[in-house]
């Protein structure tokens, strides 16, 4: 009996301890501390004073990782050799895992374990955006007149990596969501293969025409998609000016405290239009990565990232599997703006007190942002070129002529440049909140709950998650 009590006590202690460990806030923040170092560097040279190794953690995989390695090798053997800078490229697992590692380092206060450059997704940067170890790119730009001209960078991608009006990171692997479609199926359904749907209402008629059933079973879905943040990040803001999913400008002006889209009617309006598409019965609404299904003919249209372009061109278009059509993401309605949102990752510099490493990191970033390197990145992946001047290079022009599908990426960038606030949000518990929103919309799609319930559930659940985070972190 006595033992049982001791055991119960012990278990409860252990459980509560694990809760604290899970939510313990990270290191103290002090963003003003970076200023003195900036002035210090301004008086000196903008190159490292001694040979230096710059550690670069990334989360790219497969052929994109190969392309990144090629770039780093080229830098090390050219500019790097001249300046005594060696970039050490290290894969640190997927975004989430790399971020876990980073928060472990910060909580252990093991600054010497920090990388000098780290690629982080929206989820990763959220946790460390106010860390004293982050050295904003803005500081480099301010002291190095010949560094990077911010006006040359893709405007949307630049805003993606800005926090409180300050450039925090260098935009790196940024992409937008777009529509890919099967032109052969368009022809078979009697649709003009050179004309894609432009609004959700039109999308509905296209989906209906393209869906092929045999008996009760659907042989071809008109559309394969999932209403992730990536898509909502375009569909919500395009309904007007200053429309956001979350308050605090989707987390670019501070940690979001509440949902905005459930209150200002934007989610309701989007879902009203979206229900027209769902009503066709030809939408596979639960598929995160419809690429394989699109390739195999299961989907006549799909929403996917511009960064899928390279593989779609090489696996579908160039193999002659079928003729691929590309278009911008359909607008919510005719009144929507023509901007498309942006998501992805940026590169951030960590400053653990070694000026040489920091300046080495900056030099490498300048190299990445040159038109030539940006152009290679764009042509081999479908990510936006960091430096928009890349599109004027003769080799890039020739490449686009040979691969005209890539034109759509330029079109999206051009149409979106006046709408730099259409961004993937920086929110706490990114994955949880994204999943909650998706699951509620899936319930609506199945018909198991109506629009009003969906919106109120999203509002309730997401705001609860946000509140829990804010309570636990004393904000």
């Amino acid at each position, binding site marked *: 009996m006595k033992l049982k009590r001791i*055991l119960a006590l012990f278990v409860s202690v252990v459980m509560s301890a*694990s809760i604290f460990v899970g939510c313990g806030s990270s290191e103290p923040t002090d963003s003003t501390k970076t200023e003195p170092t900036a002035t210090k560097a301004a008086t000196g040279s903008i190159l490292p004073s001694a040979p230096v190794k710059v550690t670069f953690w990334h989360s790219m995989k497969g052929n994109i*990782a190969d392309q990144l390695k090629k770039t780093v090798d080229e830098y090390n053997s050219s500019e790097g050799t001249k300046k005594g800078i060696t970039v050490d490229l290290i894969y640190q697992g997927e975004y989430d895992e790399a971020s876990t590692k980073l928060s472990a380092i910060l909580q252990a206060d093991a600054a010497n374990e920090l990388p000098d450059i780290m690629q982080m997704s929206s989820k990763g940067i959220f946790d460390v955006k106010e860390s004293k170890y982050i050295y904003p790119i803005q500081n480099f730009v301010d002291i190095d007149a010949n560094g990077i001209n911010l006006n040359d960078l893709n405007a949307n991608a630049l805003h993606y990596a800005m926090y409180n009006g300050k450039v925090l990171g260098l935009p790196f692997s940024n992409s937008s969501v777009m529509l890919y479609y099967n032109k052969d199926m368009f022809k078979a359904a009697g649709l003009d293969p050179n004309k894609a749907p432009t609004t959700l209402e039109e999308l509905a008629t296209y989906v209906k025409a393209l869906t092929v059933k045999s008996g009760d079973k659907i042989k071809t879905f008109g559309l394969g998609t999932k209403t992730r943040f990536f898509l909502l990040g375009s569909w919500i803001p395009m309904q007007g000016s200053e429309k956001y999913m979350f308050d605090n400008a989707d987390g670019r002006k501070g940690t979001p405290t509440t949902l905005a889209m459930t209150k200002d009617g934007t989610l309701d309006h989007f879902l009203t239009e979206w229900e027209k598409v769902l009503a066709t019965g030809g939408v596979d609404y639960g598929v995160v990565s419809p690429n394989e299904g699109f390739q195999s003919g299961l989907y006549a249209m799909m929403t996917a990232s511009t960064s899928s372009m*390279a593989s779609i061109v090489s*696996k579908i278009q160039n193999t002659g599997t079928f003729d691929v059509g590309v278009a911008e993401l359909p607008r919510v309605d005719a009144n929507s703006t023509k901007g498309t949102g942006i998501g992805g990752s940026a590169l951030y510099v960590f400053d653990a007190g070694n000026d040489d490493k920091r300046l080495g990191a900056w030099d490498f970033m300048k190299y990445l942002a040159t038109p030539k390197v940006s152009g290679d990145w764009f042509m081999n992946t479908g990510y936006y070129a960091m430096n928009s001047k890349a599109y004027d290079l003769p080799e890039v022009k020739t490449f686009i002529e040979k691969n005209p599908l890539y034109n759509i990426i330029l079109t999206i960038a051009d149409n979106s440049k006046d709408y730099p606030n259409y961004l993937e949000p920086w929110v706490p518990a990114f994955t949880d909140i994204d999943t909650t929103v998706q699951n509620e919309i899936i319930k609506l799609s199945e018909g198991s709950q109506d629009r009003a319930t969906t919106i109120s559930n999203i509002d309730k659940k997401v705001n609860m998650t946000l509140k829990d985070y804010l309570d636990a972190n004393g904000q």
Partner: protein
Amino acid sequence: MIPNKIIKAKSIVESVFSLALGILIAFPLFYAFMCGFKDDATFDSYPPTIFPKDFTYFDNFKHVLFDSLVPRFMLNSLLIAVVVTLVRLLLSMFAAYSFAFFNFKGKNVLFFIIIGTMMIPTEAVLIPNYITISKLGLLNSYVGIMAVYFVSAIQVFMFRQSFKTISSSLREAAFLDGCGDLQFFFEICIPVSKATITALSLNSFVAVWNTYLWPLLVTNRPEMRTVQVGITMLAADDSGVKAPIFAAIAIILLPTIIIFAFGQRNIVRGIASGSVKG
């Protein structure tokens, strides 16, 4: 008396059921092996095929074995899994021995504290463990990866249960004849627990072989990585090339399968010998 016919029918049903279950479980593994032999076009074909066009297509395996760090990763994982399994066994058995045979103050409390750790999810101790390992200066070392696995509560518990089946009067009798604790441990406890030892070492080897996040956290150098991290490095979300991943999976699964094939016979033998003695 149950008629022979019914027994026979029952055994046929059992066999068919086991066979079906076996196929169901083995199929994904088999499919992964087959995919390793597929070229890109066969891999992507729709409807998908089970068998590759050509079993002499070795490019994927060559890529994994010669162009990637996977062999090095396997060596790392092997080292870690073997050392951890051995150290774990030894420590758990010593701990279990004292819990089973010794009487000391706070014995039960201590035991429940150890058992209690089983309720803490691994995710919750990930960062505290990192901090500990970092303070000990063991980051980026094999010892750093292994240290947190050296003691396993479930093993302590299992061995204690196993040792408890040995009657304490046997131990007293042995001690009267001049046997000491170490001798009793090695000559009586270990042989009696053969089945438990086999089962737990297999389990521990496979578990450590499969760990992913912890080795990734404590090491920075690519050449220190383990196999599971290695697989993810081969994959890309939006790029098409997936066949080499299957080749890597096939290669990485081999040690587990071999060990299991050998181990399974030992488990049966261990149980059989235990029952004869009992």
